[in-house]
Every structure is written in structure tokens, then in C-alpha cells.
């Protein structure tokens, strides 16, 4: 069993603040973390390895600083880690990113299963996993709540608005997971220390000779950001403070009646 996990290093968006004067993101001092859903993906892969044997390879695309995220995954139990990094890959949108990651997976593969988090908390597109599978031409089983494997048959509980689809397919497949699938294990201090010595492989443009130049980086990205802005949602609404609960409830009841809700 060969399993790959694609992860992303992201800023912890719950720590991001807006500069009140310049209306821009304050990124300084915001911790870089492994995207939380990707940690669920790593946990799923490691659990399968523990049960069925084999190897888990973790990859990410990004700057050299993303090696820290890969080391964390090694410490959690991944066997090997690769950083896909090159100036030529910079500025990629989801199309170019997923194309590049697919090329890297092809180079390192074949894999029986590929796992991704369902979305990254910085971009929140939820497109990369699915797009990687499309580039690779393997089937996709997304939003998995449960993954079971029996030889080359994988069974996935897939979450949709109306309920859960229980799906079955043959490997190879790409599976995306959310946080409901498991609780990622804690890092042991020992494993964390050991991971500092782990080798992190690098894949550059030249290591992927078959890659199509027109599909990578900023130039290969069909979408472009035209502008960014910070949303201003402030309203000057009615504010009730310092009155008793009964009075507050009565006031709210009258407000809702006036608006026609009651």
C-alpha cells in the first residue's frame, strides 16, 4: 500500500487581524500551521498504514519555510516528505497548483491512495484535491467521513447536504477529508525532535521534465486577482445595555413584532 498526502502550510486564520488604519491583513506574528483538515488527512493515511502496512509520503508545494510543516507530518508518522518548490511555480492559482502537484505525484508514484484536506483555511477554495484527481485522471471520493479499505477496494462515507453517500470503488483514488473523520494524534516530543533530522526531498522544475510550461506558475494560471479589499460590515444598530432581562426580552419582542416576524 502506497499512500500520498498533500498538505499546505497556512497562516492560522483565527489569529489574523486587520490593520484598522490601512485596512490590510496583519500577517506579522501570525503562526504558520499545517492546514487543520490536512492533519485529518495525515491521520487517516497513518491509520491505514498502521492497519494495512505500506508507506505514507507527504508532499507540499510552497516556499522552503514549508519544510517545517512537512517535518511535523514526519513526526506524526509519515515516512517520507517532499517539498515541491521553484520560482517557476510561484503565483499559481488552483488550476496551476493542482497541475504541478499532480505532476509531482506522478513522479513519486504510483500511489494506491492520495489524501487531501477538503479545503485550506487560508484560500478556502476546496478545489485543489478534486482538481489534482482530474489532472491525474483518477477517481475522486470527497468530503469523506469514514474510509475503509479491503485489498484494492475502498469504501467511503461521503458527506453531502442531504446526508451521507456510502460509496465503493477500486483504488487508485483520491480522497478528501474534513475534521469529522478523526482526531489527529498529538505530537510526542521525541518524535518532534527526531523529525529535525529527517531528510526532506525537494522537487524543482527540472525534476519534472514532462511538465507543461504553459500550465504552471502565474503564467499558467487562468484566473487572476484583480483587486483585494477588506469587508466593512459595521452597522450602527440599536443597542440595549444595562436593562433587566425581562425588559430586554419585551423590547426585543416588540421590535420583532414591528418588523412582522411575530
Amino acid at each position, binding site marked *: 500500500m502506497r499512500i500520498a498526502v498533500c498538505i499546505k502550510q497556512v497562516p492560522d*486564520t483565527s489569529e489574523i487581524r486587520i490593520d484598522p488604519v490601512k485596512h490590510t491583513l496583519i500577517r506579522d506574528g501570525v503562526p504558520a500551521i499545517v492546514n487543520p483538515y490536512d492533519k485529518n488527512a495525515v491521520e487517516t493515511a497513518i491509520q491505514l498504514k498502521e492497519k494495512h502496512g505500506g508507506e505514507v509520503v507527504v508532499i507540499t508545494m510552497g516556499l522552503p519555510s514549508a519544510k517545517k510543516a512537512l517535518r511535523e507530518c514526519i513526526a506524526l508518522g509519515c515516512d517520507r516528505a517532499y517539498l515541491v518548490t521553484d520560482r517557476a511555480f510561484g503565483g499559481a492559482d488552483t*488550476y496551476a497548483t493542482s497541475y504541478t502537484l499532480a505532476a509531482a505525484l506522478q513522479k513519486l508514484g504510483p500511489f494506491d491512495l492520495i489524501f487531501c484536506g477538503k479545503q485550506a483555511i487560508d484560500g478556502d477554495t476546496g478545489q485543489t484535491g478534486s482538481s489534482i484527481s482530474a489532472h491525474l485522471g483518477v*477517481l475522486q471520493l470527497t468530503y469523506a467521513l469514514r474510509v475503509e479499505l479491503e485489498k484494492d477496494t475502498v469504501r467511503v462515507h461521503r458527506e453531502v447536504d442531504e446526508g451521507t453517500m456510502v460509496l465503493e470503488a477500486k483504488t487508485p483514488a483520491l480522497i478528501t477529508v474534513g475534521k469529522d473523520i478523526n482526531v489527529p494524534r498529538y505530537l510526542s516530543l521525541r518524535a518532534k525532535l527526531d523529525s529535525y533530522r529527517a531528510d526532506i526531498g525537494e522537487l524543482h522544475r527540472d525534476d519534472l521534465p514532462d511538465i507543461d510550461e504553459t500550465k504552471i506558475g502565474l503564467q499558467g494560471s487562468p484566473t487572476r486577482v484583480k483587486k483585494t479589499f477588506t469587508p466593512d460590515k*459595521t452597522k450602527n444598530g440599536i443597542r440595549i*445595555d444595562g436593562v433587566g432581562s425581562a425588559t430586554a426580552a419585551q423590547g*426585543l419582542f416588540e421590535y420583532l413584532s414591528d418588523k412582522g416576524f411575530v
Partner: protein
Amino acid sequence: MEFKDYQNIWVYVETFENKPKSVGLELLGQARKLADELGEKVCAVVMCEDASGAAKEAVAYGADTVYVLENPEYAFFDVEKQSCAFVKLIDKYKPSAVFIGATNNGRDLGSRTAVRKQTGLTADCTGLAVDEESGNIAYTRPAFGGNLMATILCADTRPQMGTVRPGAFKKGEPDYERSGEIIREEISLPDETSVVKLLEFIKAQTTGTVAIEDADIIVSGGRGLKEGKNFDIIEQLAEALGGAVGASRAAVDAGWIPHIHQVGQTGKTVSPKLYIACGISGAVQHLAGMSSSDVIVAINSDPNASIFDVADYGIVGDLFEIVPALTRAIHRTKEG
């Protein structure tokens, strides 16, 4: 690629048990506005087992043309089958833009189709407009947990694809007198198009009677409820108002209520007529999912909670007293 060959705005109308989901109808209204601005048509795409009802709805909500693909194979969503058919349909009719609801199914369909068409897709948008300079679709979407908005163009490839958050646009009033053209398409899928088998479908159990994405009134609870069992008072108020129960990420992460009730950047975007936030601090990620509601009421004991910034009516107070008192007052009116 000849751009002038690519015309009209398409909306994928996702169905469940042959009924159109709300997001597709929401998108038809916005597509109508943009198409009128561009002098183009709005076309809906419906793929299900029996599309007769959904096709009529699509016309009533603004479609000029409905492409209908009826096949028992589409009874349940299978991304491989649907994207295969969708690509063939795009190749045949060449739309300029394609809008898809950003449900789990829609996101899968969007990315697989965009990759196959080698075109750009802007995911999880909350704004759709025509870019004045270029005439392209300007897709606006939140990022960084709703802290930043980005407007994105797909200028050099067609179709310009986008997935749009359910609830980002309000559903228009249907006009069942409107006429539209319904075109039945026969697209044969190769036998081995998909090797994914659906073994079983387990329907979701929801708290309350209404799904939050369809509700006119939502009562939501957050960390301020302190314990899962305290969602009872939220449910009772929602029931009295005939609304649905929502929740913040904190409440869902604490395991107090299932994820399908979550409102916010990583949950659902809603824009009901009334949103009552109880014990919700108003993290940016929550605001990203509800700030376009018509009337927002906030009840929180913390006078500095950010939820008060977006509230039309804010009460600094004890939700454990105020919420049940409001529920009782509503019941008294009904009885009286």
C-alpha cells in the same frame, strides 16, 4: 479559442430527488441581471432522473433556455458522469460563463469540469458582477477566514467558471408565466464512465424542521451557551418563530450540534430575513456566513463582542433569561 463563439451565462441547477436545490434558483436570478447587462441569455443545466419540475422552476426563476439531461444514472450525484456530460454540453453550446452552487457536489463538478476544459474556476464566490473594463465576469470571494475579499477574473480562457456559496444571493420571486425553451439533450456516457458504486444513502437527521439554507428565520447559538444541552432554548425559540437552528464554529467544534448547522466561512452562508445570534462573539469567519441577513439580532453578555458591530438590534445581557422569555412572549401571542 474564439471568444466571440462563447456566449451566454449558464447556471447548473443541482437537484436532489428531482427537486432543484435553492442555490441554483438563487444563481438564476443573479445570472439574469448580468446577462441582461451583457445582452446575453441565461441557460440552466438540469441533470436528474425526471427533470420536468426542475426545468419549469428554472424558467420561472429566470432561465431563457434549459438544457435537460434525463437519465436514471443521474438519480444520485456522480462527479465522473456529470462532469463528462457537462464537458460535452459545453463543447456543443460554448457558454461564456458557468455558475455552479458551491455545495460539496457543485465544488466537485466545477473543478473536474474546469480542469478538463483547461479553464479557470473561482471557488466559493459571494459576489458576481460584470467587470466594467473588460466585460468579463468579476468573481468576488472571501479568503483568510473572511478577513479579505478578492475580485478575480478569468480573462484568457472560456468558459469563465465559478462556484458560488449557497445563500450569497437571495432567491428572486418566481414567475410561472415566463416562457422558456426546454431542450432535451441525449448524451450517451461510455459504459465504464464511472466505477464508483453507491451502496447506500443515509439521510441526514436535522435539528428543527427547516434546513438553514432555506430558512427565512435562523436562531443560532455559540460558545455562550456553555453546554450542548442548552441548545434546547435555541431550538425552542426557533420553533416558536418557525425558523431553523444555526450554530457557530465554536459550538460545532465542541460537539454540541452537527456540522450541517454551522454558519460561517467553513460552514454555510445564509442570508435569511431574520438572524438571531445568541452567545456568538462574531468571529470574522462567522460574520462571513451571515452578515448579509436582512435583520440581525445579537444577544451576548460581552459588551465588546464583534457581533454587535453587524447587529441591527443588539442586547448586552443574559441569553439564558432573555431567550426563554422571548419564546414565552411569542407563545402568549399565538395563544392570545
